[in-house]
């Protein structure tokens, strides 16, 4: 059966609403994807029948909550083909996952050690490393970005040197939509014994994947971009890598024993989950990943590629429009950033909102990438399987309105 976005849309209650009395054309999925009813139901069911703290309680609710939380971990492990559930650390999002990794991997580093990242990184995969540089004096080396908006991997040979300890890159740019080919990255890392951390925030929603096969040592993603709730994220790590990492935050749940003289830490993943974790959010994430794996999205990629190409081609027909990202569908996702000559991205996004078209305008937490392209920001339309041709049509009617409003500006 051919993929039918209508079958997807009917599962997302928010898509039937009319914010401010306008039909909703939600094209801000790279920021946060919407949530299907089945995930809302799973969270509600947990909170109304299984709500309790996890791990240490012996009463029935505590055991049920623990089972639900660990069940969610198992689903995540299945989604990314982990060899064991213990490779899955729950965090509060991609940002907290990368902060954890930067802190733990950086603990033993010092002056002269090098981290390789790229100009295309989201601030979530940039600022933690800038902070590490401030703390430890490590050297950061940046892969450039091509005019097409791809990380220029031809620079790997020059940048990855003997003292490189970590290569940390986005799997897919949240601005240009370009997918990174990790084969040369992993080869370069292995040659010098560096760890590979992948920011998978934009890539994880595409469906099941195998982080280990990708060659990653660590892989981070967020719940709210994979049709789950916010406040939950994942740091997957190879068992040996996680085992060698010191804890990030201290507190309950992550220790083996504590005395006033000393503390010993638990094994991964608990070592990295101090305090009460986001339990209902983990349950929601599990439900969301189950939904993605359920077969509803079979054929969705082709549908989204077609819509993405429609957006790109229509943009190319607008005088003064500038696409920031690849102009074809080769190794890219449905994230389309663009600038319109003389229009500020916030003004574009504001006028699109008149038409119920929700896009994002600004630097998308990627200021160095904006600088690379000589821009302060872009407007960004980002797709999900529930988007339709009507959404694309509404986007361009709204863009025409923006151009009319600012003609002669």
């Amino acid at each position, binding site marked *: 059966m051919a993929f039918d976005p209508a079958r997807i849309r009917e599962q997302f209650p928010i898509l039937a609403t009319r914010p401010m009395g306008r039909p909703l054309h939600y094209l801000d999925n790279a920021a946060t994807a919407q949530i299907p009813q089945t995930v809302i139901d799973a969270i509600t069911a947990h909170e109304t029948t299984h709500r309790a703290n996890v791990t240490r309680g012996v009463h029935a609710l505590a055991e049920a909550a623990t089972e639900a939380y660990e069940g969610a971990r198992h689903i995540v492990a299945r989604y990314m083909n982990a060899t064991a559930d213990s490779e899955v650390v729950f965090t509060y999002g991609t940002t907290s996952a990368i902060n954890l990794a930067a802190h733990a991997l950086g603990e033993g580093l010092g002056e002269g050690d090098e981290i390789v990242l790229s100009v295309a990184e989201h601030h979530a995969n940039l600022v933690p490393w800038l902070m590490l540089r401030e703390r430890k004096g490590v050297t950061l080396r940046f892969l450039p970005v091509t005019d097409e908006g791809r990380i220029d991997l031809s620079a790997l040979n020059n940048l990855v040197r003997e003292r490189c300890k970590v290569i940390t890159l986005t799997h897919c740019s949240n601005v240009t939509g370009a997918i990174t080919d990790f084969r040369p990255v992993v080869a370069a890392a292995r040659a010098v014994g560096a760890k590979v951390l992948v920011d998978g925030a934009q890539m994880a929603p595409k469906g099941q994947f195998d982080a280990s096969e990708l060659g990653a040592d660590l892989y981070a993603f967020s719940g709210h971009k994979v049709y789950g709730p916010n406040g939950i994220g994942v740091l997957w790590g190879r068992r040996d890598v996680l085992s060698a990492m010191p804890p990030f935050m201290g507190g309950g749940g992550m220790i083996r024993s504590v005395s006033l003289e000393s503390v010993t830490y638990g094994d991964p993943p608990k070592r990295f989950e101090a305090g009460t974790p986001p339990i209902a959010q983990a349950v929601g994430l599990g439900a969301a990943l189950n939904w993605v794996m359920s077969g509803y999205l079979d054929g969705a990629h082709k549908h989204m590629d077609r819509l993405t190409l429609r957006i790109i081609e229509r943009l190319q027909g607008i005088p003064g429009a500038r696409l920031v990202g690849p102009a074809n569908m080769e190794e890219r996702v449905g994230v389309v950033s663009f600038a319109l000559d003389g229009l500020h*991205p916030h003004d574009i996004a504001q006028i699109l909102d008149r038409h119920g078209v929700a896009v994002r305008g600004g630097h998308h937490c990627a200021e160095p990438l904006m600088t690379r392209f000589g821009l302060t*920001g872009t407007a960004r339309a980002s797709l999900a399987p529930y988007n339709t041709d009507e959404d694309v049509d509404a986007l361009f009617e709204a863009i025409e309105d923006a151009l009319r409003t600012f003609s002669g500006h």
Partner: protein
Amino acid sequence: MGGKDIYENDIMELARAGSRPRYIDAPDGTATLDNPLCGDRVTIEMRRDKEGKIADIGHDVRGCALCQASAVALADTARGKSPVEINAALSALQKMLKDDHEHHEKAWPTLAAFRSVHGHKSRYECVLLPFRALLVAISEGEGGDASRP
């Protein structure tokens, strides 16, 4: 979520004027402020007269139409005013954005153009940034703490 259309004629006319930078000779103070939410940047220059009132204002806005419009409205509002009065204008503008009170536009008629921004909370800082920059420029000119007001 805001309900009104922001881009009414008054704002668009101000924005057109504010899209081009305007510099002044021998400023007594200059300040550049960023809006961390969007990366916009406003530079405001000011010169004061013998009484300490604002004699002239220059601006360079790398920002949206609201920010551009605000920079022009700021020049109209602040010329001939003391720092105390400019602080009062900033307060009035903040209240007008938040509460949509007519009272404030009577006191500061040039600012009335921004009533249409009421309810669009994510855009308030776009309007306020030039005013904040002027106050920092004044503080800098006085050799004071140029921290963000």
